[in-house]
Structure formats: C-alpha cells, structure tokens
C-alpha cells in the first residue's frame, strides 16, 4: 500500500487502535463476567497465539530489508540455538534473545551478507 496522505492513518486508527482498544474497554466494562476456563476463551487464546506465531514465521522465513539476502539456514539455526540456550539457562528470556541474536551476528559476519 502507499504510505502517502491520510489513508495510512485511517488504516492505523481503524485496523490498529479500534481493533485493539475495543477489547481493553470491554475488559473494563464486563471484566467480572468472564469465565477464565470457558472453552470460548481457550479458543481465543489459541487463535491469538497462532496469529502472533504466524507473524513470527513470516519474519523469520521471509524477512524484509537487511536480512532479505541472508541464508535461510542461518536464520533457522539462530532461532534453534537461541531456544537451546533459553531452556538450558532455565528459561531466561534475556539469554534466549541474546544467544539467538549473537549467533545470527556471527553468521552474518562469517558469510559476509
């Protein structure tokens, strides 16, 4: 899409702000009536997680910009290495993120991309 004029702002307000804040407001207004264990909420959790996971897959498999020309296997290996360090360190987020990015950086430097 074109990023000129008012249209991108309309897009952000409708598909970004309204789409998100509606649920925050509903949480305030009807918060007390939600059953945490309901099957509907389980489905919502699953779909919400899968949506973010789909974005993650897209970013890793088909990155834009500086990573677009980087080797596919390097990106996958960086994620796997980060995951291994994450679990080995007792699920410490900073370790997982740091290891993954460091692996990628080393790989990019070595392959010269």
């Amino acid at each position, binding site marked *: *899409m074109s*990023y000129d004029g008012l249209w*991108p*702002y309309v*897009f*952000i*307000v*409708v*598909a*970004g*702000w309204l*789409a*998100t804040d509606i*649920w*925050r407001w509903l*949480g*305030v*207004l*009807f*918060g007390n009536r*939600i059953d*945490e264990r309901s*099957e509907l*909420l*389980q*489905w*919502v*959790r*699953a*779909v*919400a*997680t*899968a*949506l*973010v*996971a*789909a*974005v*993650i*897959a*897209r*970013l*890793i498999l088909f*990155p*834009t*910009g500086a*990573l677009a020309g980087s080797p596919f296997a390097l*990106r996958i290996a*960086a994620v796997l290495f980060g995951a291994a360090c994450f679990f080995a360190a007792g*699920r410490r*987020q*900073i370790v*997982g*993120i740091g290891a993954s*990015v460091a692996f*990628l*950086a080393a790989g*990019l*430097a070595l392959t010269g*991309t």
Partner: protein
Amino acid sequence: MTAAPQTVSSSPLRVQARWFVFGMRGIFSLPSLILALSFVGFAAFTAEAGIPVEQAIFMTGIVWALPAKVILVGSMLSGAHLVTAFLAVTLSSVRMMPMVASLVPEIRTRRTPTWLLLLLSHFVAITAWVFAMERIQAVPREGRVAFFAGFGITLTMTNVVLVGLAYGAVEEFPPLVSGCLFFLTPVYFLTSIWLSARHRVVYWALGAGLVFGGIFAVVAPQYDILLAGVVGGTLAWWAERAFRLRKAGAA
C-alpha cells in the same frame, strides 16, 4: 521496594503523586529494558519495511500492544484489505479483554471512576500487565491506580520517543546491525509467548501458528496471518481439547 509513601492521612493528592512516581520508576527494570530493546527492533522493522517514521511513532502510541502493531505492519506490507487487517489485529487483541479484566479488580477502589479505568486500560499490554500483576500486591489499594498509571504511561511514552530516535539511527547502522535489530522482534515474541503461557493450548497454538504461518505465507500471502491464526489456532484448540478430554476420561 523502598519505603512506601504515607497513606491517605496527609494530603491525598500528594500521596497519589508519590505512588505515580513510584510506578514511573518501574521503567528501570529488566522487563522494561527487554521491551525497549524490542521497540528498537520494531523501529528497525518499520524502517526496513518503508513505513514512514511519523506513522511508526503514531502507531506505537495509539495501538501500543507490540503483537498488534507487528500484525498491522505485516498486513500493510502484504497489501491486505482494511477489513482483513482489522480482523487479524482484533483477533490477536481479544486477549486484552481477560488481561484487563483480571487487572481491574486488583487496582480499583469503590471511588475509582470508570472513565479513568477506560483511559488507563489503553496502557495494558503484555509487559505492563505482567509487571503490574507481579508488584501490585505490595502497593496499598488506594495507591494502585496511580501506581499503574505511573508505570504504564511512562513505559508507553518512553517507547514512543525511543521508536522515533531509533528509526533515524537504524538507517545509519551497517546492515549487520540493522539485521540483528530486525531479528529481535521474532525472538522476543517467541520467548514472551513461552514465558507468559498459563495454559497448555498456548504452546500447541504457537507450534501450529509457526507451521501454518510458513505455509500460508507461500500459498496465500495476502491473507496469510489471518488464515494461519484462525486455521492453526482452531486446530491447536481442537487437538488440545481432545487431548484434555481423553486424559480426563482416562483418569
């Protein structure tokens, strides 16, 4: 946590202000640091995607939730229709409802106006929510709204400014550095989802979403996020439910 501000007896406004400042200081914490790094990554992502800096700053403040924004940018990139983008973002944001719903009873008093809660609910996203739920017990009830407001507003504003600053810097960086910054977003999400999962179905949906996200990105690039979310999420929910019911039946 250091000495708590004095309670109502002195000047109520002053006490509220002190709790607000107390919340602001949460900006110097590990979760805030990790989030800030991720927003540098987000700035790199939008810069590489060609989204103008004003729009990147604007969406950081007005949408706030990082997954929603990444889905929004992903939709803009793939040229998705407004309705498709709205559906994908809104489905990812439904989880805001139970998050806000579980936070509100923890912070409100009988005198807290609903309009204030509606306003403050905008600052709820995964990092602020986890931070508040962990630390709110140490704050007396009359200071909790101010405490959350102090933390939430500071966290949002800091990252709005950060996106603006980082966006300009990203273009000066060598490709290796901007590539690594871009990579922060997916690995931050992977670890965050894993750590914030309170239900088994979340792990299953993570796996399903990754697989279907890859498939649909090739097969149906304009609708990949929405399709992978609904198809992958529903399959994960169905399979986990079958597993859960069978286990309950066997027990």
